[in-house]
């Protein structure tokens, strides 16, 4: 479980996050929705420590991440997997080396054990036989799947995904969504997804937090969205479908 408490962040005097408080449940797909530029990515970066919030706390299973020394923060990060919007695969490494990377850095596995684990992770995302390809040689959807395989290579507890469907066709988007949902349930991971794709929300979402201009405008279960009565949320959903 991840708890965030009163997270605030400003850039050059402009307040991007205005005190967001919420809880992301373990084993659930938690979605952060909102229009572009309203603070979703900044919130996620604050949660994983890529941006230091001006105020507030991020607590991973009773560990206050924001107040940990850097060395202990790194220990928590080893339990985190992140799927970046642009995949952020290491372009000088092959698919296999990308997935193997964290295993090589943090485990004492033998090369054969690492190979088995890489093959297992790639099979989880339905990608076999592309171990020796470089990221530049595979499609966008495949890159996203390699990103997921890399994220789950270690036994992670938390999975973050920033706009997992951006730049993908509807069919591939669905595959990625289902993969994330399956991995979340199978490994009982706390998953947090930033998205403005309402199809993703209704297909795989459990809990939703709607961010509007840096504030937590609405939060609840996916099934409650349509009866929320929140005008801004309704406008957002309507605009998403129109878009």
């Amino acid at each position, binding site marked *: 479980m991840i708890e965030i408490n009163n997270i605030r962040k400003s850039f050059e005097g402009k307040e991007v996050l205005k005190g967001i408080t919420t809880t992301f449940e373990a084993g659930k797909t938690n979605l952060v929705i909102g229009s572009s530029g309203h603070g979703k990515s900044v919130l996620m970066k604050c949660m994983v420590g*890529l941006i230091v919030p001006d105020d507030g706390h991020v607590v991973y299973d009773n560990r206050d991440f924001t107040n940990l020394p850097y060395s202990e923060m790194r220990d*928590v990060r080893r339990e985190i997997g992140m799927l*970046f919007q642009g995949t952020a695969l290491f372009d000088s490494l092959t698919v296999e080396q990308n997935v193997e990377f964290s295993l*090589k850095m*943090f485990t004492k596995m033998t090369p054969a054990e690492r190979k088995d684990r890489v093959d297992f992770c790639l099979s989880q995302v339905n990608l076999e036989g592309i171990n020796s390809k470089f990221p530049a040689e595979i499609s966008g959807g495949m890159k996203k799947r390699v990103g997921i395989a890399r994220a789950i290579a270690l036994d992670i507890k938390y999975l973050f995904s920033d706009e997992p469907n951006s730049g993908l066709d509807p069919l591939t988007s669905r595959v990625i969504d289902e993969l994330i949902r399956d991995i979340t349930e199978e490994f009982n991971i706390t998953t947090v997804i930033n998205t403005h794709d309402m199809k993703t929300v209704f297909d795989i979402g459990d809990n939703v937090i709607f961010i509007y201009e840096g504030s937590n405008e609405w939060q609840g279960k996916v099934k409650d969205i349509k009866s929320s009565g929140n005008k801004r949320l309704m406008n957002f959903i309507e605009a998403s479908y129109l878009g």
Partner: protein
Amino acid sequence: MKFFYQFGKYILFLRGMFSKPERLSVYIDRTFTEMNNIGIGSLAIVVIIAFFQGAVTTLQIAYQLISPLIAKPVIGSIVSDSSMLELAPTITCLVLAGKVGSHISSEIGTMRVSEQIDALEVMGINSSGYLALPKIVGGLIMIPILVIISIFLSNVGGIIAGEASGILTSEEYLQGARESFLPYNLFFSLVKAVTYAFIITSVSSFHGYYTHGGALEVGSSSTKAVVYSAIAILFSDYILAQLML
């Protein structure tokens, strides 16, 4: 003020690199890769520059010193000393600041703008240490070796130019070089090489690491890395000469 801010940031960047490596064997592998990139990858340009540098210096010194009152071996001693003291370390490293520095800066900068550095950080890896430290260590080992090769080839260039132009024989050149040789000069040259190696690799890594934006900013960081490395090399050249000679 901006200079002090950037300098402080650079010092913090260097300090941040030195934490316990997550996996020493990976760092060692990366250091060998960087030694190959920096050393072997720059060998051809260093060979060409060193050879012609020695050849041209010999011709120009001869042009200025041709006189019945000056013994010809003096030309060899001047060329070999100036190669060792200044030309080989400084010119070679200024060229390496362009070649190696821009490569390092653009490589790390591209990783920054494509979120690969963020990916390293999220994994719990000390990204500055993982990316920059092997480059710095690789540079500290290979650049002095390149400078020694450059000193040797400058003299080869000088000998060949002397023979080819009929200005002085190889015996005269070597006689002059041997007579003026001081082991301290070689030591001084290597101190310079190590200093410049650190400047090139660390300044370039720093500029790449703090790139923000896109392709344009990667190019801009690369340019800054080369310019600031070159300025720092020339400045430290003066300081070292003042302190050690």
